[in-house]
């Protein structure tokens, strides 16, 4: 069991490294908040554990975990969306080229 979990962890880390290293600096802030929202996956952990505890006070622990994780998820996705919404490519009235065409890919 342990090794399976570790294998999955290592492979996912590789995917994370590879994918993120392709993101341009422009998008680093939304990327940060977006991946922060993903780390709210603890919401799943909160749901699972809250379903399994027995003593009432442990339930409240689960409840608190659920609230915090939901804040993280909902806040994270919404705020990222707000930021990204602003990244629009439109036709400017007069396209401003860089000062010279050379040197650009």
């Amino acid at each position, binding site marked *: 069991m*342990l090794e399976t979990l570790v294998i*999955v*962890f290592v492979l996912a880390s590789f995917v*994370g*490294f590879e994918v*993120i290293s392709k*993101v*341009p*600096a*422009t*998008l*680093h*802030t*939304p*990327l*940060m*908040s977006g*991946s*922060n*929202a*993903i*780390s709210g*996956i*603890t*919401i*799943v*952990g*909160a*749901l*699972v554990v809250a*379903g399994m*505890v*027995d*003593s009432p006070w442990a339930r409240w*622990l*689960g*409840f608190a*975990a*659920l*609230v*915090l*994780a*939901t*804040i*993280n*998820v*909902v*806040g*994270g996705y919404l*705020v990222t*969306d707000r*930021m*990204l919404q602003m*990244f629009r*490519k*439109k036709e*400017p009235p007069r396209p401003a*080229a860089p000062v010279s065409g050379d*040197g*650009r890919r």
Partner: protein
Amino acid sequence: MQTLVNFAYLAAAVLFILGMKRMNSPATARSGNQLSSVGMLIAVVATLLQGEILAPWMMVAGVALGGAIGALLATRVQMTSMPEMVAALNGFGGGASVLVATAEVARYVDAGDEGLAGAAFARHGLEPLGAMTVVTVLLSVLIGAVTFSGSFVAFGKLNGRVPGRPLAFPGMRALTVLLALAGLAAIAYPLAALGDTRFDAGPLWLAAWVLLGLALVLGVLLVIPIGGADMPVVVSLLNSYSGLAAASTGFVLRNYALIVSGALVGASGLILTKIMCEAMNRSLLNVLLGGFGTGGGETAAPGPGGTAVAGTVRSTSPEDAAVLLAYADRVVIVPGYGLAVAQAQHTVRELADQLQGRGVQVSYAIHPVAGRMPGHMNVLLAEANVPYDQLFEMDEINDQFDRTDVALVIGANDVVNPAARNDASSPIYGMPILNVDHAKNVIVMKRSMAAGYAGVENELFYLPNNQMLFGDAKKSLERLVSEVKAL
């Protein structure tokens, strides 16, 4: 059923990955974020379908409450306060991991209370305590709690409630090391106790609470000595931690959704941190040991490393600057942290529109660490609807300053300091900079001759082709706009 749920988790993970992949272009980034949120929804729904969840009313209440708070925060926050926001959300995530881990420990305690035997454990769906469970539960507590308290200190530093300057007291470093060692002991103790019984969660319980306390203090001690302006790096690192906390919770619950997503976030946070450090030409260790950034753009005295710069400074007026700009062929705007402070993003766009209307070619040169977080300038200018094809990264535009008539530097300082190229004794030596000094004319808009974030003097201001336009960036830009209009 568990198989189906696991496939749903896989689907969620795939959506997270695809969502992150779409972040590689501004055109697809938004849909990527949406994809990612659909993945989250799938993961949540699949978990709910698994049954055995919290009393429904409690669950609905929890999600409603958390969702409302999250939505409120997300819609209220100012674009310029994004780093704080991310820090706070991060703290919540870390806190959730701690609570989940503690609740899991509580299950073992409950089972142990019924009788220290396999039967009671089985009734609770538990296996006897093993080394893996002990270590991963305690790691969740440790990483989660450090993330929690560290994030809120960073939050405080970023919005000014905690002093931005590096705080330290004698013996702080020794205390930090001591606490870390105590933490290790707190992990070792229940591991050692495993030899006696695998059904008594008492030692684990004790260790978890002790570790929680230690880790909360540790989080504070780790972040408090770091300067406020270094907080974005810290937040990014804490983001990585919150991923690791989620992953270790995943190891506790043997839950693939948590492990995969946690690993994704952990790796991505680490990469981002590395990129930021490289762009600032500093090592992560140097950042973490603290004492560099002195606070969010507050006027700093020239640092000890700064060479005394001699020469005269030319100051200009909005009228003269407007003429220079309006009759130029090519203008490159270089925004910096001061643009964010002055909230002048809309005004700069207005100026660019005016100039473009007169046939001037305007582009923006974005330094990777201009501002106080990566992509800070991009987000600001995007808010002001500047089309992103007018924004150019450092490497794209650096050759072009030779052919630029006016480089308009707005609230930027370190990122245009030629000392980074010329002066090997400067603390920023080696950092790649925008070569604005190669332009025919440079206009620098700032309020004073004060240094920027790194606290070093800027010889650019003394160059013959440079003129200073003193004043708050927004006010000066407004003057410029009206002057250009009047021409």
